[in-house]
């Protein structure tokens, strides 16, 4: 990166995106702190949690929730807050920030499309399916997904107009659409999405490219690790597994090659530990403790996301805000579940502290 480009970025970033960066940094201040989490952990009932959250940024969204609280309604209310914030950001974004924000939500869009498609194939009620969709991944034509009776029609009529079209056309043939296991399809699409997103941030370049490159390669590696872990003992072949790894990341290509042939946790561990940043993660993990891996990876992700706020004039903060909010909603869900199920001794296991 040349000095000139850097200066140019600093001079001109605020012209277009300065306002929204300010807004998103303000939103970030509204995230729950460690003290907040400690207080939430003391709650005895869901009502207490609601009461406490009313005093935070979630207040307006929780105020009208009817009294017998459920974990799901609590999580829904919190998600509405994120969606409202996100919508505000998107409406005020110029280019290329707008495209960047869209890219952030494609992951949810893939989930929604897969949800609707499989639901339609099993003749479920479209309205019910739409309610289940993640609101961040909604697009205008989503309801018409249900119209298509077979996968070929689906692609020709509906998907071709969505941003996801290239992922479908480049990676799946029409036979695949009919026969492929839905999870494999979802992960194939996700891989295509990650590759595309990485290419996009690279095109944007500058600090954005740098910061987002790091975040996305961590995401890619984590997915590779998860896919490997979860496919041990299933019918997924090594070649199929290899096809689901994204084409970048710290593990690409040699680590991925090792992951692809790994048959148990120790082999995965050996493959991952060749990469210095992951060696640190795995060294925190005792032998055989696969359960804790998820949490440690979440913690690592949160650490990286928070680091994005150390730099200015880049888009990474928007992505980081979305992911942090999502993690926070997961935390709240975990606390609420623990409280509702009377398992308060486990409550610390699921919380990833942000600040």
């Amino acid at each position: 990166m040349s000095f000139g480009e850097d200066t140019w970025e600093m001079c001109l970033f605020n012209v277009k995106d300065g306002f929204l960066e300010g807004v998103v940094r303000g939103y970030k201040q509204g995230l729950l702190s460690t003290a907040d989490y400690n207080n939430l952990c003391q709650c005895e009932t869901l009502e207490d949690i609601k009461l406490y959250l009313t005093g935070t940024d979630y207040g307006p969204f929780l105020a009208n929730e009817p009294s017998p609280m459920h974990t799901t309604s609590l999580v829904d209310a919190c998600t509405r807050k994120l969606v409202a914030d996100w919508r505000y950001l998107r409406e005020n974004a110029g280019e290329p920030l707008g495209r960047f924000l869209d890219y952030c939500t494609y992951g949810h869009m893939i989930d929604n499309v897969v949800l609707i498609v499989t639901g339609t194939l099993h003749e479920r009620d479209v309205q019910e399916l739409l309610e289940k969709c993640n609101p961040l991944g909604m697009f205008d034509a989503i309801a018409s997904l249900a119209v298509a009776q077979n996968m070929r029609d689906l692609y020709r009529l509906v998907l071709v107009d969505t941003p996801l079209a290239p992922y479908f056309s480049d990676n799946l043939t029409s036979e695949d659409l009919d026969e492929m296991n839905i999870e494999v399809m979802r992960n194939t699409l996700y891989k295509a999405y990650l590759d595309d997103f990485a290419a996009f941030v690279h095109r944007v370049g500058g600090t954005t490219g740098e910061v987002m490159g790091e975040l996305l390669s961590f995401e890619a590696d984590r997915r590779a690790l998860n896919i490997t872990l979860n496919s041990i003992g299933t019918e997924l072949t090594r070649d199929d597994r290899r096809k689901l790894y994204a084409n970048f990341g710290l593990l690409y290509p040699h680590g991925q090659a090792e992951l692809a042939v790994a048959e148990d946790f120790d082999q995965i561990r050996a493959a991952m530990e060749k990469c210095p940043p992951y060696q640190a993660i795995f060294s925190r993990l005792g032998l055989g403790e696969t359960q804790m891996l998820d949490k440690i990876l979440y913690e690592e992700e949160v650490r990286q996301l928070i680091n994005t706020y150390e730099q200015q004039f880049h888009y990474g903060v928007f992505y980081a805000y979305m992911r942090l909010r999502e993690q926070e909603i997961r935390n709240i869900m975990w606390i609420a579940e623990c409280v509702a199920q009377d398992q308060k001794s486990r409550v610390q296991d699921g919380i990833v502290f942000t600040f």
Partner: protein
Amino acid sequence: MSSQNRYTVTPTVSVLAVMKGRLAGATKGHSLLKKKADALNMRFRQILRKIVETKEEMGKVMKASFFSLAQAKYSSGDFKHTVFDSVDQASVKVRASQDNVAGVKLPKFESVKEGGGAVDSKLGLIGLGSGGKQIQECRKSFMSAIDLLVELASLQTAFLTLDEAIKTTNRRVNALEHVVKPRLENTIAYIKGELDELEREEFFRLKKVQGNKKKHAEAAAAKEAEEAAAAAAQGSGTVANGSGAAGAQQQQQQGDILGVQDADIIF
């Protein structure tokens, strides 16, 4: 003796025999039913103990299952519909069979795992990108919860059926003990009483007849003595003649009386 609590029967020896037979039958039935009730009660208690144990275990397993569901949701978001859509056939089915306890048919349920490979491989890939392990854990713990649930259902149904059967049996035992048997006993006692009464009547009648006979005999003897006295007073010449005639006449009369009496007197 209460005359109400008995069957209306004609008190005869043959009816007495029938009644005695019925009493013996009732006693036998009573003891058999009592044994059955005891057997049922024993089974009932067994089932009750098992139900309590299973319910306690159920509480624990369910708690663990729902917590693992929370864990799965934590690591992979809401995966409900994904699971819905990848299931086409039931992987656990319940088979009903019958169990026989002392003649009472108890329904029994067994859970049977079906499908196996095809279903497993399809569900095995859920949450491939994130949280697959937790979802599988969740699936496993709910599987064990379902097994318990089926067992509990089997026990509960058996419990209800058994309860009903025990009630019926107890009712029968009590009916035999407190209604049928006393009534039969009363009837037998009544018949015996009546028969005794008849016997006494007969005896009295015989006595009476015998008394009458004696009276007649005495009267006849007195009359004879009178006649003899009168004849002796009339003349001693005709004594031999008269007494000879009178003797013959009397003999004939006595033979007549015996002949008449014979038909009535048994001995």
